């Protein structure tokens, strides 16, 4: 979230789209109710189903699953056509005025630079026009046809209400009503927030779904504002924290791009990731990359990391290819992986195309599952009737199942969706011989290190040289690790403006990332968490809920990254002179000498407003990007593409270009295209989702939750039920190109058919919480149905839209 849970109460309009907070995040959703009750805020829900969030909304509109960009692109068109934008904000704080390379184009569904054979783009033509000093050229009148504003206007001119209706199935009147409500927040004293979740990410256009909304929030001037922002309501209690620790091949802790084969030396690596400013006077905060990276190397390799050896740069593995979940299972399926460790992750249930995952796991030599619970993954080799029809004797994988403790049985921090890092305390030991994840990883590493010390082996140096300062080597403590993540001074750290002033003495914990250095004098395991355990102690354990202004910031509760800031980009909550756009919801303000107020300023504290230092400090141009010249692999502006399994024969926006049917830059593995179904055989759109009574594949092991939702079911509309002769309670078979399941049918008014591109389109709703282990009745893993294809940028699988057929079982 750019903002935070409690801040939702400050909104005037709340849009829930691509999520269902009332069921998936009930205790956070109460802040929506609070806004409705106390501010007379209105709630709008757009969803393929009439969800429980919709049930308490002021306005609900249905939409075809997988067509969100068409809807949101239509909103952008409406705002621009009717001049419902926050002009001063857009002009000053976004790149609307920036000039783009004249050779940029968008033709027949493809941006310039498309390489069909590689299914990828060369972004060379998407760049800013630069002047002699290397700064981006701008046109403050926004009239130049090459400026972002004009390009955007042309791009979305196609998204008329008629086209929106044709693609999304949303009735035109409903769509226009929502446009009007959204447009009302273009004025400085009205703010909208958007709450989304996996209903936006789990598509092959997932990243661009979110980007389209971010553009709307920028046009309305709602970013950086109390009650505004773009708010991802995330999954597990620590999914944000694990994202921040970056257990991804492509990044190191704190989102530092990991080295690839192209980064031959440390100097080349750092130079590529340390941007130069693209406009005068901007903070260009990412220029500090070398400080963050060097401090990480010192935390990992300790004394072994020296200036002479490039702080052990060569010890870091270089990335040569994709290793996301889909890529890993593809490699496993191709026999390129020998071993696999699943730590608290149940991919047989939660990865797409279960049949392929089963086959992949069976090719492993060894599998290690670390989990508090008996997961399906750990028993992929075991026959469970129709739910897991395998022949154990043929599976030669050696499987280890290691019991770990759960949240209640360990100390440590979780980071919530608001980016607030909170310490939790152990209430009891885990059952039997279960051990904490840190003790398991610590114990395993110490054994490995001993083997390398004794026998040698492939490049033993980094294994033997890894900094391991823990008092009990096999049991690194949560306190020791939290302090290592936060960071400390290895030598005295002096004030860069006054060398006689020591900010942190050698051995002290650092106060924040501004104290990090690139000369090896500081160590921090994750720069964005720097300061969470400062010299004053463990700030994540703070428990002061005080909220003196009533805005809900609670700055003394836990520690929010970065720098305990609760609302990101909060400089944008003020006009150019530093005065809040809305005094009743002031976040920060310029007091004549410095920035301050009800949050940690997201701005250099002494940056005078007339210096024009812009709020988006991580971008080298200082402003937000309506047009993204980098980082997105599938285009600088969001465009509607059909899901990979679509009920339509062509993209209504590009009916004559089959290349532009679905995301042209999404990765497709050999064999997976053939495993996609056609509407002729599988005529119904399906979507998987959660129920309020269950959490993923965990709570089926909990008796109380199993009692409340014991049995697997699917949901269909009354109309589809009539067509297929299905009644409430009938058992039905749901088939996709990849597999099938049998479940009880619930016939409901909550789902209705939509007319899309002139054709009636039905939805089959599939809650996904069952499996072959647990306290519920056994059920099918719903991912037996889903396709093995992901978003072009994030590779998040397309769980939310695929095609099925349905019949009475």
């Amino acid at each position, binding site marked *: 979230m750019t903002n935070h849970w409690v801040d939702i109460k400050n909104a005037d309009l709340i849009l829930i789209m691509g999520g269902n907070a009332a069921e998936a995040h009930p205790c956070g959703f109460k802040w929506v109710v609070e806004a409705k009750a106390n501010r007379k805020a209105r709630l709008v829900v757009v969803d393929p189903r009439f969800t429980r969030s919709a049930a308490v909304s002021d306005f609900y509109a249905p939409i075809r699953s997988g067509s969100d960009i068409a809807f949101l692109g239509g909103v952008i068109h409406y705002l621009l056509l009717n001049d419902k934008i926050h002009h001063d904000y857009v002009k000053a704080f976004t790149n609307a005025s920036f000039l783009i390379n004249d050779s940029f184009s968008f033709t027949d569904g493809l941006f310039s630079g498309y390489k069909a054979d590689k299914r990828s783009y060369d972004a060379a033509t998407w760049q800013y026009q630069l002047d002699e000093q290397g700064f981006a050229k701008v046109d403050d009148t926004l009239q130049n046809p090459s400026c972002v504003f004009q390009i955007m206007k042309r791009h979305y001119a196609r998204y008329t209400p008629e086209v929106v209706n044709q693609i999304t199935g949303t009735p035109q009147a409903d769509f226009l009503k929502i446009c009007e409500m959204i447009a009302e927040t273009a004025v400085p004293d009205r703010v909208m927030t958007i709450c989304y979740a996996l209903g936006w990410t789990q598509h092959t256009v997932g990243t661009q779904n979110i980007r389209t909304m971010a553009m709307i929030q920028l046009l309305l001037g709602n970013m950086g504002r109390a009650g505004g922002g773009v708010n991802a309501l995330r999954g*597990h209690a620590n999914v944000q924290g694990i994202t921040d620790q970056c257990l991804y091949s492509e990044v190191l802790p704190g989102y530092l791009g990991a080295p690839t084969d192209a980064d031959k030396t440390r100097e080349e690596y750092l130079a590529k990731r340390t941007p130069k400013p693209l406009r005068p006077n901007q903070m260009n905060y990412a220029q500090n990359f070398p400080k963050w990276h060097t401090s990480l190397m010192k935390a990992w390799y300790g004394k072994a990391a020296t200036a002479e050896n490039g702080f052990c740069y060569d010890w870091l593995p270089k*990335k040569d290819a994709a290793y996301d979940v889909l890529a890993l299972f593809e490699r496993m399926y191709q026999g390129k992986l020998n071993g696999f460790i699943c730590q608290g992750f149940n991919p047989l249930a939660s990865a797409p195309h279960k049949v392929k995952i089963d086959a992949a796991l069976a090719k492993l030599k060894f599998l290690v599952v670390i989990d508090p619970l008996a997961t399906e993954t750990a028993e992929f080799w075991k026959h469970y009737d129709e739910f897991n029809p395998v022949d154990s004797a043929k599976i030669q994988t050696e499987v280890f199942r290691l019991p770990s403790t759960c949240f209640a049985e360990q100390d440590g921090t979780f980071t919530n969706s608001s980016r607030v890092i909170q310490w939790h305390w152990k209430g009891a030991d885990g059952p039997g011989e279960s051990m904490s994840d840190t003790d398991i990883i610590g114990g395993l590493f110490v054994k490995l290190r001993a083997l390398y010390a004794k026998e040698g082996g492939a490049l033993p140096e980094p294994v033997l040289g890894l900094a391991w300062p823990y008092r009990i080597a096999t049991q690194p403590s949560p306190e020791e690790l939290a302090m290592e993540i936060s960071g400390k001074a290895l030598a005295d750290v002096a004030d860069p403006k006054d060398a006689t002033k020591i900010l942190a003495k050698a051995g002290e914990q650092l106060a924040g990332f501004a104290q990090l250095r690139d000369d090896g004098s500081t160590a921090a395991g994750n720069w964005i968490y720097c300061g969470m355990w400062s010299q004053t102690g463990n700030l994540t354990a703070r428990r002061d809920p005080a909220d003196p202004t009533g805005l809900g910031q609670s700055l003394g509760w836990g520690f929010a990254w970065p720098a305990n800031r609760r609302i990101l980009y909060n400089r944008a909550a003020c006009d150019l002179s530093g005065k809040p756009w809305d005094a009743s919801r002031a976040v920060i303000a310029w007091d004549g000498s410095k920035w301050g107020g009800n949050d940690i300023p997201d701005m250099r504290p002494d940056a005078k407003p007339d210096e024009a230092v812009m709020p988006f400090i991580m971008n080298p141009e200082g402003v937000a990007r309506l047009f993204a010249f980098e980082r997105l692999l599938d285009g600088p502006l969001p465009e509607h593409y059909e899901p990979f399994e679509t009920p339509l024969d062509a993209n209504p926006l590009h009916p004559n270009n089959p290349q532009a049917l679905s995301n042209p830059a999404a990765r497709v593995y050999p064999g997976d295209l053939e495993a996609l179904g056609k509407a002729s055989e599988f005529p119904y759109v399906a979507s998987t989702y959660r129920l309020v009574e269950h959490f993923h594949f965990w709570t089926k092991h909990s008796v109380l939750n199993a009692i409340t939702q014991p049995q697997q079911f699917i949901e269909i509309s009354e109309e589809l039920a009539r067509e297929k002769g299905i009644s409430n309670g009938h058992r039905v078979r749901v088939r996709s190109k990849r597999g099938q399941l049998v479940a009880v049918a619930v016939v409901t008014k909550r789902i209705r058919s939509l007319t899309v591109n002139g054709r009636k389109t039905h939805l089959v709703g599939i809650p996904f919480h069952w499996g072959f282990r647990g306290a519920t009745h056994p059920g099918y893993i719903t991912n037996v149905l889903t396709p093995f294809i992901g978003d072009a940028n994030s590779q998040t699988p397309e769980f939310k839209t695929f095609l099925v057929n349905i019949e009475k079982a």
Partner: protein
Amino acid sequence: MINVTRRQFLKITAAGLGSSSLALLGFSPEPALAELRNYKLARTTETRNTCPYCSVSCGVLLYSLGDRSKNVKSEIIHIEGDPDNPVNRGTLCPKGAGLLDMIHSADRLKYPEVREPGTTEWKRISWDEALDRVAKHLKADRDANFIKTNDAGVTVNRWNTTGFLASSAASNEAGYLSHKVLRGLGNIALDTQARI
């Protein structure tokens, strides 16, 4: 009635229910004694924790039997929302309301086990044997497949034949340590639930 916070209330009522403390709460002792039963949480230890389900990360209070003294085994007997937490303010949802049954689920794993190739059952093993065998597998695979330089002669020092999927339910500290160890071994075949 004087202002007493919830926690002070528990403390006062736990302090033996003497007439002076009851009077402090504004009750007259005689009828109050007739009303009160032995409150089940009065003798428990309260621990602050976080619900592990969604990312609202509701504050929870764990109530356990046992006073944390040496050789006393604690047992969690009740869980409820933490009223001090600024986000959930004491509430829990239908998922979180079942937390106690999750902790005490019959499907909790208690011992390290192995399923040998081709067999149909689990076999209990010791932690020492489990970690020894896994460490040997990892080392054998790393030593056999470690790539020091690529075809162009660039130092790449990577190991990509054993994969690792990290949990979104683990603490930051566990996630960080796992990341440090994996990169330390040169492993790049790592990913996490957070992507999905």
